[in-house]
């Protein structure tokens, strides 16, 4: 069938609008910890085997890593290399997953990772170091970094939701634009000598664990709880699975969709700060190519490109899987370009194996590998 509406009765794997109204009748909602626990237990019904399908592979990779290199399975390596180095990726992965679940795309997130910290750094750094010499307070600069991220989210949201442009192609175009602006602002130079406050997120530690790792864990936990328990989180699935049905149940589809763009932009700006903190500089190419990994991880984690489906638990496992494999290859001193090749191979093999292994993928099976069609679905709903 041509459109997504025809495929929508896959709601059993994702709480779409029907599940939304059944599971959280407003009058029966209980507050406090008891209510929270009840809802958590109830939501287990939606957890499926495939949420954990990648876990055995992750375990195998960890065993191989421990055998291959004595350094791999040390706390220092796991926290400071595996997790810290993939923290920025993880944050953008969660942001992109939210967008994908809601049936949209934003490829330009990778350019926010570069542009937002670049604007902040420009306003701080002195003229001779390549900045504007405004010497603004680092705290204000951090706010500006976040504001830039949110603002780009507003613009992208406006283009996709208000003007109803195809989210894939317009954010592709915006990516070229924002990336070009990042390059133009500094004439391709890197900005270093940044104040410690700006680097804090990416370099400081709490209780011996890098803050970026805390952030890594926090975004996944918050996103999982939000999607599973919050009515708005359920709404994200609903508008991605079947926008017209979601609209019919009284959800403000446009406002939620726009909100997700803004949140995603904000998260990408945070990821930019994490990356900047880790390398203690903003480079003109920061974030370039990141979106390929982000989309790969999200889809490996079972997030549907057609919207309406995806679980943070399996996205987390996918992120850890890629991070661990990259780390093991680095420890084994494999040249970086072979790591890239391995990365692509792993994604191909995992996707193929999971398909051959009979992982039921209702939509994929029916569509025979079709591409996302948010436009068409939107059109049909009018």
């Amino acid at each position, binding site marked *: 069938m041509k459109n997504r509406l025809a495929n929508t009765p896959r709601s059993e794997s994702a709480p779409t609008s029907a599940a939304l109204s059944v599971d959280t009748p407003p009058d029966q909602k209980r507050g406090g910890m008891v209510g929270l626990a009840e809802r958590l237990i109830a939501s287990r019904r939606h957890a499926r085997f495939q949420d954990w399908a990648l876990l055995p592979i992750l375990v195998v990779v960890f065993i191989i890593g421990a055998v291959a290199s004595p350094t791999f399975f040390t706390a220092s390596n796991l926290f400071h290399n595996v997790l810290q180095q993939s923290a920025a990726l993880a944050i953008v992965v969660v942001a992109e997953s939210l967008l994908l679940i809601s049936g949209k795309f934003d490829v330009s997130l990778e350019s926010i990772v570069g542009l937002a910290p670049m604007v902040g750094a420009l306003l701080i750094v002195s003229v001779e170091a390549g900045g504007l010499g405004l010497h603004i307070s680092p705290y204000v600069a951090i706010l500006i970094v976040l504001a830039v991220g949110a603002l780009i989210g507003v613009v992208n949201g406006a283009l996709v939701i208000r003007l109803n442009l195809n989210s894939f192609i317009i954010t592709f175009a915006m990516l070229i634009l924002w990336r070009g602006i990042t390059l133009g602002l500094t*004439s391709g130079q890197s900005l270093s000598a940044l104040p410690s406050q700006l680097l804090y997120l990416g370099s400081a530690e709490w209780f011996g664990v890098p803050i970026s790792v805390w952030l890594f864990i926090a975004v996944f936990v918050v996103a999982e709880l939000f999607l599973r328990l919050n009515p708005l989180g359920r709404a994200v699935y609903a508008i991605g699975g079947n926008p017209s049905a979601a609209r019919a149940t009284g959800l403000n589809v446009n406002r939620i969709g726009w909100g997700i763009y803004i949140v995603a932009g904000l998260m990408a700006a945070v990821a930019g700060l994490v990356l900047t903190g880790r390398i203690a500089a903003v480079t003109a190419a920061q974030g370039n190519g990141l979106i390929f990994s982000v989309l790969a991880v999200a889809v490996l984690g079972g997030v549907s490109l057609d919207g309406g489906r995806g679980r943070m638990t399996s996205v987390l496992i996918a992120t850890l899987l890629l991070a661990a494999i990259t780390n093991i290859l680095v420890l084994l001193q494999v040249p970086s*370009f072979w790591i890239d*090749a391995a990365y692509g*191979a792993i*994604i191909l093999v995992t996707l193929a194996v999971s398909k*051959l292994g009979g992982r039921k993928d209702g939509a994929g099976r029916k569509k025979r*590998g079709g591409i996302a069609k948010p436009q068409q679905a939107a059109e049909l709903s009018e």
Partner: protein
Amino acid sequence: MTDYEENMIPAAEGSSAAALRPAPPKTVQSRLRWLQGQGLVVLPIIVVVFIVGAIISPVFLTVTNLVSNVLYQTAVLAVLALAETLMLLSNRFDLSIESVVGIAPAVAAWLIVAPELGGKGVYLDVAVGILLIFAIGAAVGLINGLLVVKLGLNTFMITLAMLILLRGLTLGVTGGAMIFNMPRSLTYIGRASVGPVPISVLIAVVLYVAAALFLRYHRLGKAIYAIGGNEEAARAGGVRVERLRLGLYVLSGTLAALAGLMLTGRQATVLPNQGQGMVFSVFAAAVIGGVSLNGGRGKMLGAFLGVVLIGTVQNILTLSHLSSFWIDAVFGAIIVGAVLLSKVTVRE
């Protein structure tokens, strides 16, 4: 308008059968829609860009610049956009073409060239090397096709993973270094020209005309629109959907290999990052040219004009006295503008 375009448009118009053309439209809106249907909606934008180009630089509107810069440098993009347009019409993607542009010539050159120039030292025969280039492209297309068509995996994801994989392999094979000093016969397609017109431009034009005629008149060409528009209906109508899709993937990989050969010839080297980022321009060209991302809608002429627009804009940006660091930003802004503008007239 260049000589070249004046030649091109009638040639392609011949392909849009006069019999099927609707009655002359009346209002501005319907006129634009008619242009859109014919894939001609970019034409007014191209005219404006040409006027701007002529104002910005006196060099722009010279035959030398238009032929040996604009067309010569966009021939590679044109071939890739043709491959992607066929994929999009059938409602599938192929992102891996930009990596095929790198890997196919890289492997061949690596096997041909002497070790001190970056090769392996196998001294493969050049003719075999050229065949190998196409074989690699076809093989990549076949693997993509099997994964997408036979296993039913997501086209976007598979070809993206393939892009990442092949990009890594290209770097691995070349060791991150350039391969240069290649035999003349390997660079022939990219370097030689017939009179003032480079052979790669002629190849691109011939391919577009052939593809346009194929899509309009050939049974399989019509079937591509059919499977892109409504796969089940096409299947019911007797189209062998799987086989056609598989063939399109192989064709796409082969065309990308050709583009790689053309690019290698033009540069006279194989760069380790050859082709990187080209898929952005390819998609931009196709979409600006009115090819639908939802399959089943679009014209070869439109894709071609999209390519011409992008090539012209890039050329004008190079000729202008703009700081090279701002070129990307201006290019991005123009793409965004073109996508917005095409939206005004697209009847999705």
